[in-house]
């Protein structure tokens, strides 16, 4: 068992992908940074110096302290505190956690929807294909942020009052629905190629159900490019989430994401408390940049034309 695991590890270490990874300093730095972001986000309750959501720990006398290297700063609050005395560093850890959760959940939702519709359009063809792709065209002519805003607005109108408790899922839904087109188009294209190959025709001759052919035979062969899109889409989804939260229609201020933190901090900028908004902003940019770099590298590494 251990031997087989070692073999698998050695194989993956020798693979083209790993070779390209070891020879791309950008990708390695980006991977380390991203791993650090995910690590602190996942372990936020244990690694954060304070728990910003524990009201018992908050003390208003600690509010709006500057970062520790500025006069008046307190070493137990390395990046300063906000207006309620919450430690900025800790809120960033917890905020990144929510940003990542929303981003990843939205990407999974988009991916599921897009891949399913793309498979269907490519495999069935005809009117189904024409309809799905028309809808995709129409949606593609509007920016994702607008569609996300619209879905968010509708959700607010449909469920008045209950919004704060469902904010997470509303965000996932609105960002997810706004992003499916790219997946659908890619998957449809490769499905139309795969559909005519012998293995699919053989499967059809056996009388396997079309849904089973799509899911078990075509799907694994069209997933490659989907993963690249998904990686870059995580960055986009995180930015979209931050933007919606910044606009005040995202997650509520009681459990802030990075975008909410930036919006809260924005109010204090004019009175000189720049750290409340700057550090969450920096954290967001670093995280997104790392994901973008990883996505760029993955795209080039998986592109056979560039080898």
């Amino acid at each position, binding site marked *: 068992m251990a031997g087989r695991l070692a073999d698998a590890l050695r194989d993956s270490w020798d693979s083209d992908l790993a070779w390209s990874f070891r020879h791309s300093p950008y990708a390695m730095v980006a991977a380390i940074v991203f791993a650090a972001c995910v690590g602190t986000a996942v372990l936020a309750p244990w690694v954060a110096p304070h728990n910003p959501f524990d009201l018992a720990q908050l003390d208003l006398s600690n509010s709006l302290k500057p970062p520790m290297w500025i006069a008046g700063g307190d070493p137990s609050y390395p990046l300063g505190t906000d207006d309620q005395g919450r430690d900025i560093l800790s809120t960033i850890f917890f905020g990144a956690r929510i940003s990542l959760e929303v981003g990843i959940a939205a990407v999974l939702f988009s991916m599921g929807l897009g891949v399913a519709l793309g498979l269907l359009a490519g495999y069935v063809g005809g009117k189904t294909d024409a309809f799905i792709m028309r809808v995709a065209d129409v949606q593609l002519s509007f920016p994702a*942020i607008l569609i996300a805003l619209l879905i968010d607005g509708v959700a607010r109108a449909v469920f008045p009052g209950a919004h704060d408790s469902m904010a997470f899922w509303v965000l996932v839904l609105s960002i997810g629905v706004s992003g499916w087109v790219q997946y659908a188009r890619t998957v449809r294209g490769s499905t139309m190629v795969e559909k005519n190959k012998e293995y699919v025709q053989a499967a059809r001759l056996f009388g396997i159900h079309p849904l089973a052919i799509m899911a078990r035979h075509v799907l694994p062969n069209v997933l490659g490019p989907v993963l690249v899109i998904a990686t870059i889409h995580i960055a986009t989804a995180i930015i979209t989430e931050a*933007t919606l939260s910044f606009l005040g229609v995202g997650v509520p201020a009681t459990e802030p994401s990075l975008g909410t933190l930036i919006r809260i901090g924005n109010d204090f900028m004019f009175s000189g408390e720049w750290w409340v908004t700057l550090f969450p902003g920096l954290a967001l940019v670093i995280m997104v940049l790392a994901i973008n770099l990883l996505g760029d590298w993955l795209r080039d590494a998986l592109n056979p034309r560039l080898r």
Partner: protein
Amino acid sequence: MTAFVIRRLLQAIVVMLVVAFVAFSLFQYVGDPVQLMMGQFATPADRIRLTHELGLDQPFYVQFFHFVVNALHGQFGVSLRIGKPVSVLLAQRLPATLELSICAALLALAVGIPAGVYAGLRPNSWLARTAMSGSLVGVSLPTFLIGILLILVFAVKLGWLPAFGRGDVVHLGGWSTGLLTRTGLESLIMPTITLGLFQLTLIMRLVRSEMLEVLRADYIKFARARGLSDRAVNFGHALRNTLVPVITITGLQLGSIIAFSIITEQVFQWPGMGLLFVQAVSYADIPVMAAYLCLIALVFVVINLIVDLLYFVVDPRLRVDRPGAAGR
């Protein structure tokens, strides 16, 4: 050509009808207008009377038809939050958004195309490399963060530029412009940069990659072999052929600039349509949302149409009406 234009026009109308249908469904299924207008103490008879007056007892398609007719006349009802007709609200806000968007688009083109051409012609120079790395950072920076950073530096720390609002505006007929006053122009600088930066990086990257692609083509080698000057080859042949995708993307981006102005307007409290829309979303103000949606859709559809027609001007290959080219 005529067949192509007609087909495009029909498509545009279908898209607009679909959007109008979405907007109509918002009205239809979100909230109960009768309840909203009468409150909870209305008698059933009153409710039936109002339902009849509003035409809500008519069949679905009749109501949809009325909605479209009203929309064509620019009537979207009354804002639930402000209590004024939506058309009036939007007309007040339109100049601010358009001025900002057009300035941002001009900035993006005026800097993006030359920078992209330069990066394409000298891909290994340090300036091009810096610009390319910078553009990746630019893509990762959310629009609102750029705005906040600009405000932090130029308004809070340095105090050079105003941080919010439009400055003094001059009213010319129904149009309010900030381009004629000093404070108006000063207020425009930071929002323009914020809104234009993303498009600028996008255009630069696009022009660069298209230039690199085109410069490898046979006809460029041939033009060089004929002894044409670098200038004639680079600008007469190469740049001209990169312009097709650039026009498409720029055209489509103009629409997204107007849509993205939502964020910039929120950051700078710019009194445009986007700010109105965000407030409408957070208050679930359906009439404003529906009207904004239809307006933005109209802008997008018109831009798409113009872009398609521009293809004919720029790319002679498309002028032959091939059956294969129809799907593009």
